[in-house]
């Protein structure tokens, strides 16, 4: 399966391991991702905080690029980029005036023919759990996972809508397919405050603490996510969150692609499992998964 792929700014940087593990998983599943030539930042997560025109124009530029090279879908692994692209795509398709405006600003001629999609959606729908399961060589037995979707993947429903906004399932089914055990917990889509990760660390710590506590209470021994923001937040800010909650969490935060990759038999290094703040490997070693 071929897709035009929008990497976004993080997957080269803070989410490096997400980028490489995604590549690994795609290879394993025979997904062909061709990077959108000449892509630019979609504006997340600040453009829409400062200027509506900007929030509109930046994503449309990329949508227009994709359309120009004949793509009907634009896949991204970053939940944040996905949401911005999806919101704007929906906006211009429902309000012709918005489309005109966007085209004026970008100098492009976007017709509205591109549907942004998230990697998770592609794995869940296009590839399908069965084909994922078929590829598993090292089932992640004993791993108790809290699937954390974050707020960006499933909201707003009218723009995203590939899964339920309160109790989504796509990631759960994939993780189960990888042989791990998923815990039922209430904060799957509770926000962790990523947009303040630098500006208001105190707030972030508070929000992250809430999420992590619920995961722990539900008996998870790690979280899995499909969003660089969530990841860097829960991973990098976990110690701080623990201080706020006056407890220790020690919950490794994995990317969905890392867990899948692991179950497909990749080596930890090939999946960037070595570059986490909260050590990612000890748990896996304990469970004899690496």
């Amino acid at each position, binding site marked *: 399966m071929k897709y035009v792929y929008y990497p976004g*700014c*993080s997957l*080269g*940087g*803070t989410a*490096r391991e997400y980028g490489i593990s995604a590549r690994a998983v795609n290879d394993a599943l025979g997904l062909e991702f061709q990077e959108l030539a*000449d*892509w*630019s*930042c979609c*504006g997340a*997560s*600040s*453009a*829409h*905080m*400062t*200027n*509506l*025109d*900007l929030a509109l*124009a*930046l994503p449309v*530029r990329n949508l227009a690029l994709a359309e120009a090279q004949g793509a009907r879908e634009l896949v991204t692994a970053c939940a944040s980029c996905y949401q911005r692209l999806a919101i704007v795509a929906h906006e211009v398709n429902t309000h012709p005036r918005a489309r005109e405006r966007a085209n*004026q*600003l*970008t*100098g492009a001629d976007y017709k509205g023919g591109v549907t942004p999609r998230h990697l998770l959606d592609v794995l869940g729908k296009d590839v399908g759990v069965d084909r994922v399961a078929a590829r598993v060589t090292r089932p992640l037995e004993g791993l108790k996972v809290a699937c954390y979707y974050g*707020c*960006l993947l499933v*909201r*707003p*429903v009218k723009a995203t809508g590939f899964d339920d*906004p*309160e109790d989504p399932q796509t990631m759960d089914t994939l993780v189960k397919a990888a042989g791990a055990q998923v815990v039922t917990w209430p904060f799957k*889509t*509770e*926000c*962790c*405050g*990523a*947009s*303040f990760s*630098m*500006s*208001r*660390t*105190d*707030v972030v710590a*508070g*929000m992250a603490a*809430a999420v992590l506590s619920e995961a722990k209470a539900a008996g998870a021994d790690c979280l899995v996510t499909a969003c660089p923001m969530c990841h860097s937040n829960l991973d*990098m800010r976990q110690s701080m969150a623990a201080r706020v909650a006056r407890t220790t969490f020690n919950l490794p935060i994995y990317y969905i692609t890392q867990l899948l990759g692991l179950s497909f038999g990749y080596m930890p290094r090939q999946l960037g499992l070595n*570059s986490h*703040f909260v050590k990612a490997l000890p748990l896996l070693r304990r469970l004899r998964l690496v």
Partner: protein
Amino acid sequence: MLSIKGKRGDAVVRTITLSALEPGRTRLQGEVEAMGGTNVRRCYQCGKCSGGCPASFAMEAQPRQVMRMVQLGDREGALATNTIWLCASCLACTTRCPREVEIAGVMEALRIISRRERRVPSDRNVALFHDIFVDAIRRRGRLNEFELAMRYKLASRNLFADIAQGISMMLRGKLALIPHKYRGRAQVQAIFRRIKEAEVKRS
């Protein structure tokens, strides 16, 4: 065993002379609706938004209360709260609102209004971060997170706050130091230019 979670926002206690505010469908409502595309008058103050807001513990006013201020046309109040800056746009409120009010959209609108009116943002750091973020995009067309981080820390004068993370990130190769260079940059800058022109025309 009712436990109150988080601290109450310590909003300044004010007496508002309602008759001094605009009556009926206020101008503020109009502006907000124009941008947020939602009818704030529909809000009946049930509080479902705030009850589910993950950031509300840090807010001076509950999101619901901000809706109220907009309904009353209490411009000063609405733009003074840090609430509008501490909204993480997670849309839990919008998704759950029984009156289909796009609360997060309203917050977004208020932030932008506060900018237009060149007000001192009620949470300088958040605002500052967004400015630097957007400026970074303007400069390069793509975001260089390391550059963003460093510039933000310089500007917010807390260079040493989680510098540790910064360095360990670098060690983990997580902060790409090489700035992107590519054609898209020019086009993105063109977008910024057109927007500026539009703004100039408007004012």
